[in-house]
């Protein structure tokens, strides 16, 4: 019986110690990891939507409370004008499509759209990320007004041929980002002012 207790205690102590160590390492690296993930997953997209930004949207990022959740916003300063990029998600053919939408806060127009994450069919739906001319259709469109739709659904966006579901998903993702922007506009503006 004593032997049993000893075995038990040793394994429990081992696990406790390693759990503690891991928690410490995780705590120490969490911020860095978050930055790295943003840099390598969202960084290239952010760069494509904010081509002329004079700041680093990644390091200047801030969080805005949206009910219980927090939304990460990436501010961009382009030739003195302020813009903000927000990520939105929409249902695609193979799962959620993540899209970063850059919005010019001064005139309320979309400055750029880029796909971050997706699991669409390579060669068909994946063109939403690879072919910049598809997402370029959103550039300059106002965020106020009707939600974005593909032409087949009565909207303005030309769907990718052979990938209507993906195109709808991208529109949905852009709409969700725009909705978030409009819902949080007052607090985003406040933070942007503090930045500049």
């Amino acid at each position: 019986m004593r032997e049993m207790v000893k075995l038990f205690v040793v394994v429990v102590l081992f696990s406790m110690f390693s759990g503690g160590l891991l928690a410490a390492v995780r705590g120490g690296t969490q911020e860095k990891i978050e930055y790295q993930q943003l840099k390598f997953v969202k960084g290239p997209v952010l760069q494509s939507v904010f081509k002329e930004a004079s700041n680093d949207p990644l390091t200047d990022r801030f969080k805005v409370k949206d009910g219980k959740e927090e939304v990460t916003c990436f501010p961009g300063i382009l030739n003195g004008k302020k813009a903000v990029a927000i990520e939105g998600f929409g249902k695609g053919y193979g799962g959620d499509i993540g899209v970063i939408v850059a919005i010019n806060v001064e005139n309320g127009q979309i400055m750029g759209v880029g796909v971050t994450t997706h699991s669409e069919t390579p060669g068909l739906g994946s063109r939403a990320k690879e072919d910049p001319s598809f997402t370029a259709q959103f550039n300059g469109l106002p965020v106020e007004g009707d939600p974005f739709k593909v032409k087949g659904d009565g909207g303005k966006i030309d769907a990718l041929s052979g990938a209507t579901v993906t195109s709808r998903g991208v529109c949905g993702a852009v709409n969700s980002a725009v909705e978030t922007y409009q819902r949080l506009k007052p607090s985003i503006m406040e933070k942007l002012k503090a930045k500049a």
Partner: protein
Amino acid sequence: MANKSVFQEFTKGLWAEIPPFRLVLGLCPILAVTKSVDNGIGMGVATTFVLVCSNVIISLLKTVIPKQVRIACYIVVIATFVIVVELMMQAYAYPLFLQLGIFIPLIVVNCIVLGRAEAFASKNGVVASLADGLGIGIGFTLSLTALSSLREILGNGTFYKMPVFGPDFEPFRFMVEAPGAFVCLGLMLCIMNMLGKK
């Protein structure tokens, strides 16, 4: 074993017991990650870190660990260090982490690490275990580097992402595919055995 010097414990991992070729252990990561030199080195360094740390801890605690549950304890120690490596890699070498992906967590079940813990660290002192872990780890890194250099040079025409041959070189794609890994490994084993016989 007990009379061997620390230096001998270290050097045996570099040649006499060089892991993939002599012990023929830990082949899964060897075949999977040696597509390019930076992957090979990254994997080698990660494994070395885990080997050294787990060897040291296990040899320190060898009197505390009851025999019946030793494997469970070893696995806990090893898994802890593997996750430390994984987090560190995510924080400081994210592109490498994306490349290696699932093979980092798989170091936990790498036979080399558990093998050294069971066969060496649980019977020897701290310094000898440290030397053993370091030697085996560096040996493993060298083998991964050699194998991945061969595969990258032949299969992609580059070494560490830099072109080696002129633009006319037609890459021998087979070498970066999975079957090419087996052929490469077989050839290297064969060379090692030929050299060893003399």
